[in-house]
């Protein structure tokens, strides 16, 4: 289970954008979190991805509480989670060729020998052709770069995937292709998914269930 319990988080302690939110994802389950932009759902996604320490509340990852965040999080917990954001250009080092971008997580964990094999295996699954792998981010389109970012998120075979507005900037066909790549990975590995977005039609079609941010926050506050 990926369990967010009574999470309060934000960038200003006096006005947290996430207040006392509880949400869980079962193994293999896909949950869509639907909300307007700026509502705080991305902050919650960052908490779930171990990228933002909450002010209060608990995150349980397969039963174990998360005590450290970002680079201080233990390797086993960090690698259990793959994350893809809305804007690939903000999360891709412009100097890296796509191969190296995809392989980044393996370098950090020192399993260098695996790199080639794993990238070669992943690239076609996200629809990237070999010639694209040699390019740098400015030489590819947003859609192609986002495919590389998805491959990077899948590299360490995470048990949990967090996709925060992964397709908001993309056209219909690239959106469908990326969602299909995520679903293929999930059916092969049984990974769970938290997909955060604002498009009800998309999340409804993609996920087992969708929860609206409004409902998530009002039931908590109403008690």
């Amino acid at each position, binding site marked *: 289970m990926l369990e967010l319990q009574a999470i309060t988080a934000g960038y200003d302690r006096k006005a947290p954008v996430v207040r006392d939110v509880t949400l869980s994802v079962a193994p293999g389950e896909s949950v869509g979190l639907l909300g307007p932009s700026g509502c705080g759902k991305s902050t919650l996604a960052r908490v779930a991805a171990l990228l933002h320490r909450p002010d209060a509340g608990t995150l349980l990852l397969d039963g174990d509480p998360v005590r450290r965040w970002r680079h201080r999080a233990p390797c086993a917990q960090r690698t259990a989670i793959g994350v893809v954001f809305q804007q690939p250009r903000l999360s891709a080092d412009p100097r890296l060729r796509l191969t190296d971008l995809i392989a980044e997580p393996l370098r950090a964990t020192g399993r260098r020998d695996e790199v080639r094999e794993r990238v070669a295996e992943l690239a076609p699954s996200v*629809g990237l052709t070999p010639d694209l792998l040699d390019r740098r981010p400015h030489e590819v*389109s*947003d*859609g192609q770069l986002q495919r590389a970012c998805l491959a990077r998120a899948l590299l360490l075979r995470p048990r949990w995937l967090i996709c925060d507005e992964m397709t908001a900037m993309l056209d*219909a066909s690239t959106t469908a*292709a990326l969602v*299909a790549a995520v679903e293929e990975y999930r059916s092969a590995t049984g990974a769970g998914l938290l997909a955060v977005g604002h498009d009800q039609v998309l999340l409804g079609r*993609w996920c087992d269930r969708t929860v609206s941010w409004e409902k998530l926050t009002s039931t908590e506050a109403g008690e």
Partner: protein
Amino acid sequence: MTAPVLSVRGLSVRFLMPSGRRIAAVTDAHFDVAAGECLALVGESGCGKSVLASALLGLLPANAQAAGGAYLGDVDLLAADERTLARTVRGRLIGLIPQSPAAHLTPVRTVRSQLEETVVALTGTRGRAAVRQAAEAAAERAAFPAGHLDHHPHELSGGLAQRAATALALIGNAPLLLADEPTTGLDRDLVHHTVDELRRQVDVGRRALLVITHDLAAAERIADRMAVMYAGRIVEISDATAFFGLPGPRHPYSRGLLGALPERDFIPIPGMPPELGDLPDGCAFAPRCERATPTCTTLPAAAAGLVCHHPHVTEDLRA
């Protein structure tokens, strides 16, 4: 039919790269937009639609070469010099509704002061009270609430920032409005809002509206006609009702794009678009097209708003 406000004739744009490569960003685009009409130009990122918009506004980078014509009244937008573009085209003949309104607004000044400045720059209005009144009227036209006029852009929600940018675009009373990805990153409700307000400018103001977008749902809501761009070419132009309803798109690429929507089949078109610097000789969609035949290695001629050797449902259309 009334004379078109904008006539684009054989517009092509080439980028010359330092490596000596030539990128065919836009090839031989032909279309018209009439007063009281909205044309949506759709396609995936990198298909050339934003370059086409830049060409109309005279905002192409220095290494770009444009050919063909784009006529707005008696101005040829491609031949006009920067002075003409700055003084008579941008703002006066073309009102631009930008992709990210927050970036388009000046952060340190209130919405009111930006509206007033534009009123002074683009209309003959003089005198404090008159300028103030004209700015308030502009805000109202874009449904921007008067109570927020003295706010700075960062104090506005995404929706209000979009309305502020729209209000600015409307001040010059330009006959053509050009909206470049006006709904990117907006929530569905806000998309509807933004799109409906733009539509109102078309219906009430009898303006011509060219919307450039990758959002087919937004296009369906606003457009009278659809132009679909693939690998730098407009491959299909058709009536929006026929496109989204029956008989549906006729070009295989348009069909695939529409079918990829989550409210339809949610099936991606296989493969990826070709490089604009390395286009095949024939139809650029051929490697991804299930209807491709050996004929498709030759370039299809444009006929009835369609560039395809084997379009869908032509027989139904003739019937």
